[in-house]
């Protein structure tokens, strides 16, 4: 494998505590050497990328994406989804198991990682917690783990039965896997398509109460407490309500290993953005009240949130061009997460760049135990994103790499233009040169 030198860039590696001008040598898929500008030793024959004026950071890690393969390739494939990831600066993505058929076996887990899928960044499958995502019978977690699965979840089919969830938490803990819960008490959300509030009332849409999320988070935390096993790791997916965040905050104070992620749309948008039935503002959990959105921002700024994850959920155009209550849930996110985070978290809300990058790389990688990712310490995987932190650009959903265009951020101003994304030493995305 050829060697790559990234020269003249400003390296920000929060996990390693680096924030300085550095040259980097990547070799055989790993970070081989880091040195002050012009001081690298073994650069003979290496291809050189000039990163003068650019930021060099660990490749981003998204622990919540839907790549739709196997089975729903009209929405996205592993090849197109990872191309979108690379275009967004991501070098590792964790793929949810609600595929067709669901990923509940070592065979599918391995199939998703096979070279024939054409992934341009690393795919970490998250396996189904129960057979067929039905919330009844546990899968073989040891076998799934050795096939490469990094966590288990029933994602969009939350595990409601206490005894099943207790078994899932404890079985996953025994093999050192995390349990991710999409917290939604579906008994409270039948037929609902947006947040419950005066907005849903006026639009004549059935609403999801915020308790549907927080009740289940509280139930799960109670189960974790009762298990009294420090190996148990509960991760709350796409947290969207102030009440659920408060529960996570409290659990953490009690010393429990309970973590959470927040999606960009939940810290930027509210139910108001549904407007007159914009199906690109329909997702689950739904866009919430302004108070909930403000709580997401606060929790990111004060450090309660462990990771930003996109919940990238591609759908074909025709699937979203329907009546609001008939439209599928979800929006794309891989190509907008960095641009939105830099534009809002960093520029507007003054979260230091290193912390923004940590929420998008080091922290999510650590959550799911992705060793050698989320940092550029020597010996780590050569997963790198190089971007111009100050460049502003306009996102056009139709020009993206994803097969899908279902984004509420179409036409929004983004900050931070990606120049290169490098996955395990290979350039997986190159932008056209700035004019």
């Amino acid at each position, binding site marked *: 494998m050829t060697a790559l030198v990234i020269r003249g860039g400003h390296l920000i590696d929060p996990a390693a505590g680096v924030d300085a001008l550095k040259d980097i040598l990547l070799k055989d898929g790993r970070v081989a050497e880091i040195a002050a500008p012009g001081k690298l030793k073994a650069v003979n024959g290496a291809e050189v990328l000039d990163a003068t004026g650019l930021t060099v950071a660990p490749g981003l890690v998204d622990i919540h994406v839907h790549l739709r393969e196997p089975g729903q390739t009209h929405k996205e494939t592993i090849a197109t989804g990872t191309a979108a990831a690379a275009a967004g600066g991501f070098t590792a993505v964790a793929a949810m198991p609600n595929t067709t058929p669901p990923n509940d076996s070592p065979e599918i887990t391995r199939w998703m990682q096979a070279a024939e899928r054409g992934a341009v960044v690393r795919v970490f499958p998250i396996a189904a917690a129960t057979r067929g995502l039905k919330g009844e019978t546990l899968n073989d977690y040891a076998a799934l783990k050795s096939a490469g699965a990094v966590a288990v979840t029933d994602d969009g089919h939350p595990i409601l039965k206490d005894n099943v969830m207790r078994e899932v938490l404890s079985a996953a803990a025994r093999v050192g896997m995390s349990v991710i819960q999409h917290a939604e008490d579906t008994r409270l959300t039948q037929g609902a398509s947006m947040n419950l509030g005066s907005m849903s009332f006026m639009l004549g*849409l059935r609403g999801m109460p915020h308790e549907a999320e927080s009740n289940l988070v509280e139930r799960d935390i109670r189960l974790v407490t009762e298990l009294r096993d420090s190996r148990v790791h509960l991760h709350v997916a796409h947290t969207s309500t102030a009440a659920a965040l408060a529960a996570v905050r409290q659990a953490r104070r009690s010393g429990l290993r309970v973590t959470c992620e927040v999606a960009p749309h939940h810290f930027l948008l509210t139910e108001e953005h549904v407007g007159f*039935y914009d199906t690109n503002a329909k997702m689950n959990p739904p866009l919430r009240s302004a108070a909930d959105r403000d709580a997401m921002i*606060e929790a990111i700024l004060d450090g309660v949130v462990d990771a930003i994850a996109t919940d990238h959920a591609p759908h074909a155009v025709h699937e979203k061009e*329907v009546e609001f209550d008939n439209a599928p849930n979800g929006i794309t996110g891989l190509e907008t997460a960095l641009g939105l985070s830099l534009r809002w978290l960093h520029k507007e*809300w003054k979260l230091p760049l290193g912390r923004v990058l940590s929420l998008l790389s080091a922290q999510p990688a650590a959550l799911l135990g992705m060793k050698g990712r989320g940092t550029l310490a020597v010996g780590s995987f050569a997963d790198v994103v190089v971007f111009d932190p100050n460049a502003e650009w306009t996102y056009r959903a139709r020009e993206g790499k994803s097969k899908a265009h279902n984004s509420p951020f179409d036409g929004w101003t983004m900050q931070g233009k990606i120049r290169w994304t490098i996955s395990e030493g290979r350039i997986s995305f190159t932008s056209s040169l700035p004019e």
Partner: protein
Amino acid sequence: MSPTATPARRQLPLPPVAASPFPYNACSLLSVQDLTLDALSHVLARATALENQDPLERTRILAKRRIALLFYESSTRTRTSFELAAKSLGADTTLVSSLSSSIEKGESLKDTGLTLRALGAEAIILRHNSSGAAWLLERETRLPVLNAGDGMHEHPTQALLDLRTILAHLRPGVEAVSAETLAGITVAIVGDILHSRVARSNMLLLPRLGARVLLCGPTALLPELAAAAGPGIAIERNFESALRQSQVVMMLRIQAERLAGMQLDLEEYKAAYQLTGQRLAAFAPNAIVLHPGPIIRGLELTAGVADGPQSVILEQVRNGVAIRMAVVERALTAGAGKGGRA
């Protein structure tokens, strides 16, 4: 809604909410909010003028223009009155209903709309069981779309005909409406508010003319947050107290088809909310009684009240034809907004 929300410590700039692009077509009537008070006055005036016009002369207004009625839900009053209204103006109408069309085969609303447009439809009147369907159809076809009821959301022509009925009784002779026209008037809307598009259109429309809207019903059918729906709206759970305050009483049907598993004790409901002759005489002897239909005699109101002297239910139906002539004319009159060839 979120009691545990931490109050924002900092004043942060936030992403804006884009202004609504609707209506794309100025001739559409998706919501009662699409009409300014001037436009509303114009529609009311045209309804009267068209009603009084010579029928033969009237057929020249939209002679041979093409209007499609697209109905995904059953309807007696709305469909018939729209059809009669369009035909009274000379238009050719065609009815497409979800049964007996390609909708049964899975054709989407978008494709159905584009097909009707290709067939020469110049406007589409849509009744649909999904809230927001009229917005989708308008965006995809850019034709004038008249919302004849979308799910639990709005039914603007019903609110307009209700307004015409109310004005005829309480403000006779009023031609143009203003923000004070209904000042001092309280309208009670009673029953299944949660599932009612008629209630939503009326509670958005009547307060703009100065009326006070009192919503009345049990919590299951009238959530507390309805009071925050707009200005001039309040909740009064006690039916008799609501009656005592009201000059207009609008009774609603319990929408069994939209209850979605909700359990309702009908005997209890009737005991608390049925409009009986006794209640009407005791608490609102001078009020007019409206009902958008279909009425279920013996449930939300008794037969005696439906047929009694305070009932204006059939007048509402009659007003429906006049109002719909006015909005159909507006839909096909270029440069509407204020609309009409007065």
